[in-house]
């Protein structure tokens, strides 16, 4: 059943290419040369202990953090200091945060339509129609006129996903999307993410949800001390890990 779901997706051309990416915070080196390629429609799950650089890595992909060495090419555009390129890539790459980061002074609908109106310059009616469609997809169309503060954590995170999708991104980044949620709300968010994956979205997901990784991921990357220690299919990764560090990590969380 699980394999069947995965096999419905055929992977396309490389869309995110990172080569020897290094990043320092002061004296601390967070990334020590990360080389990896993500292909279209691929779902990559990134796991690892805290402080291993996995969040920093995906934040480099839309330049929330600037890398200092190596190259990052997203959708054919290299990330440099060029602001035009950065803004273009950010509008193609959606991101979902651990703390949701919804705009508390705007209604759910306005949260979703803001970027399409200001960045894509789309007519308001069109953006609202699409926003309602997205809210249907994440299962909370009735919350459109409420403010984020009136919603539960799970609902807020689903709005945050809808907000990113409203820009019709080609890649979605998830930075521990369920870590701030109660157990019963985790499922509703993961369900939305699974549906996205089946729809063929390219996804890079930092998470501790091993069930999600097993079921949905095409590839699992294990980060430690700023490098990819091991990567492979979930079957390989969970049943036959090669490195001692991976084995230790899995033994502690499974």
């Amino acid at each position, binding site marked *: 059943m699980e394999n069947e779901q995965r096999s419905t997706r055929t992977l396309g051309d490389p869309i995110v290419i990172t080569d020897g990416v290094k990043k320092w915070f002061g004296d601390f080196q967070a990334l020590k040369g990360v080389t990896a390629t993500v292909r279209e429609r691929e779902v990559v799950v990134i796991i690892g202990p805290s402080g291993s650089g996995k969040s920093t890595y995906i934040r480099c992909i839309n330049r929330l953090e600037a890398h200092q060495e190596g190259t990052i090419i997203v959708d054919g555009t290299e990330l440099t200091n060029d602001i035009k390129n950065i803004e273009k890539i950010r509008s193609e790459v959606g991101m979902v945060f651990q703390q949701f980061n919804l705009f508390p002074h705007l209604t759910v609908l306005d949260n979703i339509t803001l970027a399409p109106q200001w960045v*894509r*310059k789309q007519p308001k009616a069109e953006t609202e129609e699409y926003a309602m469609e997205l809210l249907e997809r994440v299962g909370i169309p009735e919350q459109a006129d409420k403010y984020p503060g009136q919603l539960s954590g799970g609902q807020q995170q689903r709005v945050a996903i809808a907000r990113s999708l409203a820009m019709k991104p080609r890649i979605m980044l998830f930075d521990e999307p369920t870590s701030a949620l109660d157990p019963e709300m985790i499922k509703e968010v993961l369900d939305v993410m699974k549906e996205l994956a089946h729809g063929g979205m390219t996804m890079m997901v930092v998470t501790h949800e091993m069930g999600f990784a097993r079921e949905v991921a095409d590839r699992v990357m294990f980060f430690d001390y700023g490098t990819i220690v091991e990567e492979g299919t979930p079957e390989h990764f969970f049943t036959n890990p090669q490195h001692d560090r991976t084995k230790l990590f899995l033994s502690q969380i499974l």
Partner: protein
Amino acid sequence: MTVEVRQHQKTPLWRNATVLKWASQVFVLFMLLFLFGALGSRATDNFAQSDISFGWDWLSNPTGVQIREGIDTLPDSGARALTVGIINTMRVAISGIFVATLIGTIIGIARLSSNWIVNKLATVYIETIRNIPLLVQIFFWSALAVGLPSLTAEDVGTYWFKTSNRGFAFSWVFPDGGFWPWLVFIAVGFFVGRWLLRRRRQHQEDTGEPGHGGWYMAASILVFAVVGWFAWPVLSFMEPVLEAIEKFVANLPQIIVPIVIALGAIAASVWWIRGFFESRRTPAGFGKLTDDDWFRVVFAGFAGIAIAVVAFVIGEFTIKTVAGEVLSVAELAIVGVSNFFGWLGAKFNATDANTVIEGIRSGGPLVFERPQVILAGGAQIPQFGSSGMVLTVPFFAIWTGVTVYTASFIAEIVRGGILAVPKGQTEASMALGLKRSQYLRQIILPQAFRIILPPLGNQYLNLAKNTSLGIAVAFADIVAVGVTIVNQTGQSLPVVLVWMAFFLTVSLSISAVVNYYNRRMQLVER
């Protein structure tokens, strides 16, 4: 096992928490009124024994007060003298609030700057200014200005800008004959501009094209201002209209005043009660009112009726005017409103205002004046003439003092407000591809403003109240003028009461404005 339940019985009134709460409040209110009444009559008796009768005659009597600066330096009555002081205070407070907000915002943002020099300059400004007592700073500005060279006979002439130990004089634009009709044109331009702004916003929403609504609005105001500059005499038909209203009001019977006030008060209380009932209505139907709610309704109704009754009583009180007439309060109100329309009507007189007098009248809405140094009086002392804007040393000292001082606090409030918006808001905006200018305006500033507003209101209140320190440098504000009146008449208590009423009115007005915006900005949660 059975649980013994105490028998339900109706709660007696003296154990009902709601009744107790309201009864105690009503009791305290009456006690307070009684206390003030007793103190008042006691004070009146004491004044009577010490040959100083507590009263308000000084308001209408000539007081012989001389004021150093203001709209009238030799006022003919106590009320007029206080008015001059009030206007001087308001000049400092209002312009001070605007400039302190501007400086404070710039310094606050500068302190967040990553530019080392800008950042440190802002820090030094804040840490120096807010840690020195305001009074000392006011003395400092005063000493600085007094240290400037004095005017000599050689200085006689016309200037763009001139400093001296008598104050600062600079070129300024003043309203002239056509000013009020011109304002009407600008107001029309504003409303047309707002209409255009809405249409452009709608266009932006419909098509996604940038609307540039702000530019349309600015252009509309500019066009009307330019047209009005030349076309303002066409509004002279307003003069006879306003004069007709003036006559109509003057001929109204005086009973109309308490009737209008009473109807207003009762309408207000009915409106409040209706709104209250509406607010208790839910989609499920009309909620049950608690005892507390009923008390509020009764209280609001009672307050409306009480104000109505008091209006009739006070309307009969008589007051002696400057001219020596004895008028009732109601008559005085009618005369006041009628005079207001007459005054307004005179502003639209085109023939008189249109006369060009060289150097005094421009024949237009505004006149530009440059300051002059002239030789005046029998002793031919060099001093500033009446044209241009002359800031006296006391005005400069108190204005600069309160503005610079308050700006340092506002800077910290602005900085704190911006820092208090979580970093995640910026990150989420950036991740969506919004430009810096876009997310600052749409996301960060609206949230920062919500945090900044309440403490900002406090700073405005402080600024308005701190203007009373002007007395230290002999600035002719309401406090200084009041002190002079007390010295002349011995009426200390009434003057202090006027001060209190004035500052209370100013502070409550500022609070009302701030609270209004605060309510509008509040976040909806749960």
